[in-house]
């Protein structure tokens, strides 16, 4: 069956370091991969979208990579700040799914000052 895995344990890092979050998938051939941020008690907020023919996408301090051979996406936050503390969700969609997404369980990031 299709499976999307994100590290369920919280990631704790020091302010200023680069945070790297992982999204692995199996039995799936996504055409698109999206990353969302979710704060406690709030809905997810879209951050970045990357397509299967793109290796890397950047937006300010954020960088996403997409390796269809490894079936993995990495999400990096450089120069992390305490305000980056949140849960980060990856979501995948096959080419024919329109706007349907399948979400991973999310990884909680804690950035300590």
């Amino acid at each position, binding site marked *: 069956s299709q499976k*999307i895995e994100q590290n*369920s344990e919280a990631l704790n890092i020091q302010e200023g370091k680069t945070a790297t979050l992982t999204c692995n998938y199996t039995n799936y051939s996504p*055409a*698109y991969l*999206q990353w969302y941020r979710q704060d406690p*008690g*709030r*809905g*997810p*907020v*879209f951050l970045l*979208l990357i*397509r299967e023919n793109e290796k890397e996408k950047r937006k300010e301090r954020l960088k996403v990579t997409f390796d269809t051979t490894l079936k993995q996406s990495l999400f990096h936050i450089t120069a992390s700040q305490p305000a980056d503390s949140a849960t980060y*969700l990856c*979501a995948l*969609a096959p080419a024919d*799914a*329109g*706007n*349907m*997404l*399948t*979400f*991973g*369980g*999310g990884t909680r990031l804690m950035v300590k000052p």
Partner: protein
Amino acid sequence: DVKVTQSSRYLVKRTGEKVFLECVQDMDHENMFWYRQDPGLGLRLIYFSYDVKMKEKGDIPEGYSVSREKKERFSLILESASTNQTSMYLCASTLETGDNQPQHFGDGTRLSIL
């Protein structure tokens, strides 16, 4: 900015009650979605709608129904609430295009069934 508004942040109901969760979006989006989010299980799609009066089942539709009478409003209905439907419910919308679009979420309704 797109605004997706869910009518209640917190709701407490009793087993067997019929429960309505309302969602309104203000950007003329074609697609609307209902998810539930549970610890360790992530977001799971209950139903989605791609047009007025049109609906499709998601991954976990059992025990739920939906209504979309107007483009901006998408309602989730628990026909006879049960305790295993205690969860965070999230509504989302997207603009229909040929490409994958980001989903815009409301802030959720935390529903407790006693």
